[in-house]
Each structure stands twice: as structure tokens, then as C-alpha cells.
């Protein structure tokens, strides 16, 4: 009976499989079977060892059951800091599946896909307006690939001036993708310390910037949810020494319609369509990481760009200074459709209200929790707020325990143990698509967990108690990795 309970573990596809079942019929062949020129057997396989054999019903039940083991934004608040888990409008899924878009092959002649090119052109223009930049490339598949593209452009910019320079500066509060992307562009990474407000230490930066520094990668608002108030001075300090300012736009949701990176001295930045512009995260992707640049970096944009020629749009491949192609074809086009639909649904006033509400919700949570949970930095918050487990020290309850206990209250936990500059960090980003009731319920759960930690710490330390599966031994999983199904001992 276990298999019918809502919490039961689901067997693997391979365990459900039974020899001889089928879930798909290939239509009858309408051409003659091959005779003389059939493919030589030395090229072909006769079996796919272990591959599942399932009926259509088996497949549907298997994945439907699996789906029920997941939390999702449509079930409630998903307050992962710096991930911007907002509601994914259903109409976006509908329009991305319009046959004119979904069935368009990337090798079709430009004259047949003017609708696709026009959509890309419109999205680029909208992003330029929102960010105050001169051009965008839509090609990068996700934020990290956007970073890599941006830093490659920075390198090409410096190279054209005779010296690629050696160092990329990155604050200690940054996402791990920043240093990893800088490394892939051939740079040495140097960390810049944060000051007591959690922002870049301008004095230290001024002392460090020299002719060897190519760029500073700055997340704004930073991973504490704090606006880098000295960003113009930061830009000036860099520009004075010929270096550039890269902005990680993962947190752009904080100020859409309120301020623009292009007005802050930013030379190049990426943003995440799967954050600010609500394309679904899909359990880990796809994303999309467009990169905006100022005129000075335009020659280095990846090929091709979309250009207008009278009434027609066309791809421009002939760009001699381009960094090249960062991936195949034109980017995650399906995400462009959704993001553009999201912009159209909001309009200028709606986008402004979006960021305003996101910041209001974060500050409301902050206000209601700051008496109970420790707030390591009291700088004003924008779209997210970072607490720590310091106030729980004497209870023995840690951030991880609070996170796990939240699941028993029906919430996905916040981002934990990040940013690294906060010990035991709980990074909470509610986004704008939450109701007052949902925020209040989350606050009540957080307050209840604090009370439990003081009354019965073990209850919290052993959480979760109500999930389909309880705490998993991740250390053992990494020590003796089992990364694929291999059948039972008999080798079924």
C-alpha cells in the first residue's frame, strides 16, 4: 500500500520496468525497407542494456508521483536569497508554446523567422531601457555564462588597448560563479574585503587598483541585499586607472524602474531572466543570462547580433572584434519569449511596482524578525535580508536546523550559509509575488522555531519530521558515490 501513500518513496524507472512493455509506437515505415545498402552490423547495437521498458501509464504515474515529492513556487513562499523565486505566470508558458515560436528550427532562413528576430530585437531594446545600457547580447545560457561572456569582453577591450591586464577584483561577499568565470577568462582573482556596512571598502579598493587590474566584479545590491551606495566612486576609482566596472545583476529585481546600472558607472553587466523576469527555474534551469554593455564594449559583443535594416531584421556575423560565440545558435530563445511577455504584462508602472513590492516585503520580514533573529549588518535592506543563528548559540540549534524545521511548517527554507562573510547566514528573499498572509505565516513559523529551539532544541535539530524523506547522509553519499542505477546484485 506504500506506493499509494502521498509520502511513499517512488521506485526507480528501472525497477518499474518489465520486459516487453512499450509506451510508444513508431508509425509504419512508408518507404521501402533497406536491402543492399543496410548499415554494416559493426556500427550498430542490438540492445541497450538496462534501458527501461514501460507502458505510457507507467511513465505518467512515475513522474506524477515524483512531482509530488517536490516543493514548488505554486505551493507557497520560496524565500531563497539571491535566487528571486517569484511566481511564474502561466500565460508565459502558453505563449512560449505557440507553434510559430516552439517549432522554429534555428537553421531556417532569416526571411522565415522575422518574428523570432523581432522578438529578440524588442527584448534587447526593453532590457537596454530598463538597465540604461547601449546594447545587450541575449546569447549566454545562464548567469555564469553571462559573467564569462562579460569578462571575455573586458579582456578583449583591454587587449585592444595593448594589455589584457592580469587581475580581476571580486568582493568577499560575491557568488562563487564570479571567481570561477574570471578564471575561465584567463584572469587571476583577488578578493576585496567588505567594510563594516557589508559594502566594498572604497579606501582599500583605491589603494589596490592599478594598471594590472582589468575589472571589478560587483554585485549590486550585494548579497546582503544592501545597495552599494558608493558605486559611482567605485566606478571612478576604477576608470581613473583604466579599469572597468562589471555588475553582477543577479539582484536586479531590487531596483527595476527605480535606478539603472547604466547610470551608476557600470560598463558591463549580466542579468538573469530566470530571476528578475520570472522565467521558471525548472528545478535547476534553463536560465538565460543576457549581458548589457556601454558603447565602448559594443564591438566585442558575441556574434551574431540582431540588426535592423529598414523593415527587416538580420543577423550580423561580420564583427571582427567580437569575442566570438559563447554557445550554439542564438541563446535560450524560449526564455526570451517568456521574459518579454513578463515585461509586456507589467509595463513601466508595473515593473516599478514590482521592485517596490519586493523591497517592501523584504523589509517587512526584516522588521518582524529582527527582534528575534540576529541581524549581522543593520544597513538598509533592499530585496533581501540576511540573518544569522547567533542568537540561538546557547541552544545548540544551528542555521541548518532552522532551515530543516521550516519544512515541517510547510515552507521552503531560505538560502543558508551564504554569503560567506556571515557565519550561519539565513538569506531571505520573499519577492513581490507574496501575500501578506503568506509573509505573516512565514514569520509565525520562524518565531515558533525560535521558541522551540529554546524549549526543545532536539525537536529542531532532528527536523524535518514530516517530509517524504528525512535528513540524508550527504557525507557518506560523497565518500562512496553511487551516481547511477546498476540493477540488483543479480544484474537484472
Amino acid at each position, binding site marked *: 500500500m506504500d506506493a499509494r501513500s502521498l509520502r511513499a518513496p517512488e521506485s526507480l524507472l528501472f525497477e518499474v520496468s518489465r520486459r516487453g512493455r512499450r509506451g510508444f509506437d513508431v508509425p509504419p515505415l512508408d518507404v521501402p525497407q533497406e536491402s543492399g545498402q543496410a548499415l554494416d552490423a559493426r556500427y550498430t547495437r542490438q540492445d541497450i542494456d538496462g534501458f527501461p521498458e514501460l507502458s505510457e501509464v507507467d511513465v505518467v504515474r512515475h513522474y506524477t508521483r515524483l512531482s509530488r515529492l517536490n516543493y514548488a513556487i505554486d505551493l507557497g513562499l520560496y524565500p531563497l536569497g539571491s535566487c528571486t523565486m517569484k511566481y511564474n505566470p502561466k500565460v508565459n508558458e502558453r505563449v512560449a508554446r505557440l507553434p510559430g515560436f516552439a517549432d522554429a528550427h534555428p537553421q531556417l532562413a532569416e526571411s522565415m523567422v522575422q518574428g523570432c528576430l523581432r522578438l529578440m530585437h524588442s527584448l534587447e531594446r526593453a532590457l537596454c531601457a*530598463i538597465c540604461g545600457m547601449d546594447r545587450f547580447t541575449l546569447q549566454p545560457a545562464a*548567469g555564469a555564462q553571462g559573467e564569462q561572456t562579460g569578462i571575455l569582453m573586458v579582456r578583449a577591450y583591454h587587449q585592444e588597448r595593448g594589455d589584457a591586464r592580469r587581475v580581476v577584483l571580486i568582493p568577499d561577499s560575491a557568488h562563487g560563479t564570479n571567481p570561477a568565470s574570471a578564471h575561465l577568462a584567463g584572469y587571476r582573482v583577488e578578493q576585496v574585503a567588505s567594510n563594516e556596512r557589508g559594502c566594498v571598502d572604497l579606501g582599500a579598493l583605491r589603494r589596490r587598483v592599478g594598471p594590472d587590474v582589468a575589472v571589478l566584479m560587483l554585485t549590486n545590491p550585494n548579497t546582503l541585499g544592501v545597495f552599494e551606495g558608493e558605486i559611482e566612486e567605485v566606478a571612478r576609482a576604477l576608470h581613473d586607472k583604466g579599469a572597468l566596472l562589471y555588475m553582477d545583476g543577479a539582484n536586479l529585481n531590487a531596483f527595476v*524602474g527605480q535606478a539603472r546600472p547604466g547610470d551608476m558607472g557600470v560598463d558591463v553587466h549580466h542579468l538573469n531572466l530566470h530571476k528578475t523576469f520570472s522565467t521558471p527555474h525548472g*528545478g535547476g534551469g*534553463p536560465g538565460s543570462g543576457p549581458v548589457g554593455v556601454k558603447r565602448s564594449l559594443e564591438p566585442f559583443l558575441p556574434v551574431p547580433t540582431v540588426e535592423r535594416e529598414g523593415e527587416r531584421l538580420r543577423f550580423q556575423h561580420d564583427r571582427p572584434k567580437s569575442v566570438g560565440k559563447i554557445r550554439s545558435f542564438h541563446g535560450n530563445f524560449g526564455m526570451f519569449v517568456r521574459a518579454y511577455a513578463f515585461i509586456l504584462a507589467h509595463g513601466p508602472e508595473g515593473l516599478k511596482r514590482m521592485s517596490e513590492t519586493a523591497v517592501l516585503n523584504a523589509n517587512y520580514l526584516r522588521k518582524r524578525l529582527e527582534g528575534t533573529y540576529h541581524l549581522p549588518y543593520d544597513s538598509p535592506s533592499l530585496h533581501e535580508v540576511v540573518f544569522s543563528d547567533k542568537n540561538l548559540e546557547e541552544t545548540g540549534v544551528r542555521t541548518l536546523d532552522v532551515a530543516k524545521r521550516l519544512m515541517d511548517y510547510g515552507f521552503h527554507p531560505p538560502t543558508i550559509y551564504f554569503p560567506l562573510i556571515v557565519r550561519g547566514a539565513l538569506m531571505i528573499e520573499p519577492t513581490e509575488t507574496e501575500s501578506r498572509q503568506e509573509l505573516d505565516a512565514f514569520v509565525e513559523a520562524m518565531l515558533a522555531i525560535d521558541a522551540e529551539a529554546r524549549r526543545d532544541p532536539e525537536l529542531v535539530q532532528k527536523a524535518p519530521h514530516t517530509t517524504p524523506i528525512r535528513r540524508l547522509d550527504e557525507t557518506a553519499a560523497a565518500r562512496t558515490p553511487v551516481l547511477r542505477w546498476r540493477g540488483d546484485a543479480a544484474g537484472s
Partner: protein
Amino acid sequence: MAAHRYLPLSDAEREDMLRAIGLASAGDLFASIPERLRLRGALDVPGPLAEMDLVAEMAARAGENLLPDPRAQFLGAGAYRHFAPSVVDHLISRTEFYSSYTPYQPEISQGTLQAVFEYQTLICQLTGLDLSNASMYEGASTLAEGILMAERASPSGRVVLSDRLHPEYVQVVRTHLANMGIAIESFGHGKDGAADSAAARQALERKASSLVVQHPNFFGCLEEIEALAAVARQAGTTLIVVMTEPLALGLLKPPGEQGADIVLGEGQGFGVPLSYGGPYLGFLAARQSFLRQMPGRIVGEARDVDGRRGYVLTLSTREQHIRREKATSNICTNEGLCALTAAIFMAALGKSGIMELARHNRAKAAYARQRLAEARGCSIPYAAPFFNEFVVRLPVPAETAVQRLAERGLACGVPLSRYLPDPAQQRDLLVCVTEVNPRGEIDRLADELGRLA
């Protein structure tokens, strides 16, 4: 400002919450942004649109595309047209899958984690290798990651590519490797269109970390993987086999069993919509020895405190959030939902379906190739065996043919001249035939191409 349908807070609630946090107006929420940086005017973007108008607007834009009937398209070259069973889109449309995040909290993400574990297993079974990660962005950048992985395992500063690799893949590899101190060289092919293993042997006389071949190659020709693996093995080089059409694995011997060390490529052909080039997914499989060098997320089996089987993201000490600039890759978000799409497609077709569909594709392509070989003025320049794609040499420049046949409602193929400047290939057209092309359209293609002479 009027309420918006995606924003639940009422005006009264907003006022109340502002009061609760001690602010007089919503504008004060942004007091930490210096005044001179605050945007005064409205953003220059279109909208807002009511949902009904939004659907109409987007439908109008989609309608600007003038797509030929799918049955009359013969395009491949990196993206493949296949019929996806209805269950695929139905199941990936479950909100628990598409509106969840990367599974950082395993207790409430077992659906995604188990599906990825199964995906990894399916990819291993098809490729004949030990390991698969949870997906990469798409085929071309996955190749760049594969080359970097081989270089980390055995540094040499040199990689040797087949000259029959998809030209976009080569372009992307050049971009990614530009500053990594790895020289890119290539080796040639034989008259029959397949890689020349003697040329590969010669190219490997100097040490290289990897030898890269595409199978079937960019011209649709099958490669002699065993011979190339022997060459690579002798030189102590990692053999990377790139596949742009995953369905070929339903017909072809698993490259892992033929001696390939890494098999990677584009997974779009497994039920992922064409969607004008993305989102797709890169698959990456390798031998056990590459375990610590793999880029990207990997899911592993684990036990919970009650001894129950479950799944977790594992081996994360390879990844950027722990290792930062020393990570095996910068990838964070991958193509989770596309990997799920591919997994459901594989499960729905199953062992018999995937093998039969692959054979069906081959039979249709063989028929088409025969018909085109007989068309007036047309010839087949490469004799090597093929799967569902091949080159036909036309009596006129291939771009001309594409334009002329477009007027007849046919997307006849991809001119090689789009990628290769070689004037000898001006008349070469890459044609792909799948289950979605009925015999009647194949015959019409042959007839129309035969009229060009």
C-alpha cells in the same frame, strides 16, 4: 499605481506594512540609493497588457514567422525534428517540476533529484560510460567543458579536433579556450567523408590532452570509433566523441564500449522543442576516472536517518560555490527541465521505441539519399555510412536551391557554404530526414532538386 494581477498585496496592506516598518511612503524604501541615481521618468518599455491582449500580441509576433510545413523541412545540422509523445509536455508542465529551484534541500526535492539520477543512468546506458552529470547548457559549450576536463586530467596544452566537427562547436570552443593556454589543432578526413585515422595518428605524434571527433560527423558520416580509440589509446590521449543527434545512440554502438573516454553532445533531439535554438541541453558522460574532474551538478544516492533511500546533490567540492576560482567549471544553473524532458522522452519511448525510431530514421534517410542520388544533376559526394543526415551535391549553389525551394514550401536543408568558405562546397547541401518527413515530401524534395539543373 493600480494593483497588478501578479502582485497580491492590496493598497491597504501596503500602507499598513509601510507603517509597520516605520516608513512614510514607498519611495522611502529606496532611500539607500543615492538621490541622483534615482530614476525620475518612467521606463521606456511597452505595456501593460491585459492577458488577452498579451496573448494576441505574442501570437501576432509568432505569426510573423513564415514556417514551412514541418513535414516539408529537411533541416538538421545541430537541431533535430522529432515527434515528442504527448506525455512529455504534459509531465514537464507539472508545476512541481518547472517552478521549483535547484534541489538544494533534498528532503523536499526528491522528485527532481530522483529524476536527475535516472537521467544520469539513461545517459550512461546509451553511451556505454560510467558517469553522467545532471546536464550542461547545450552541445557546443559542453564540448568546451569536456576539452577542459580532459586537459585537467592530463595537462598538455594541446587539443586535436576533427575537421568534420560542427563549425559552431569549433567557434564556441575557440571562444572558451581563448585564454586557457590550450592550442587548438585539427586533422583531416578521407575521401569518403569520415575522419582519417592515419591523419589522427600523425596529429597525435605530439602530445595532446584530447582527440575530438563527432559521430555522426557534421556531414552526417559515421566515424570508425574503434580505430580512432586505438589511435588515441596508443598516444595516451583522451578520446572525446561528440554527438549532436542523441537519437543516433538508439542505432549506433555505444561509443563508450568502443573505447571513447568521454561522450558528450546535444540532447535536444530527445523531445526538447526546437524553439529557435534554445533552451536545449548538453549531455556529458565519462569514464569513472574523470569523477573528480566532472563539471556541473551530479546527483548521488544517499540514506536518510531512518535508512530510507534518497538522492542528493553530491561531490560539490568540485563546484564553484565551494571552490570558487579553483572549481572544475563556473556552471551553476544548468538545463534541469530540458534534462527532465529528455529523460521522460527516453522513458516514454523505452528500449524498443528508441531503437525502432532510430532504425526508422535511418531507413527514411537511406530512401531519401537514394532518391536524391538519382535526381538530375545531383550526386552524393561522400560514401561513408550515415544515420539520418547526409550531404548532397547540387547542380547550383546550395543557397540558390534553398531560396528556390522555399518558394515551393520546402526547407530543403542547410547549405555548407553558410559555415565553410571552401568554394568546392558551394553546391553542397546538408539534408536531414526524420520520422516527421513522409515519403511524399521526400519525393517532392527529390523532384524539386532535380528541376534545378
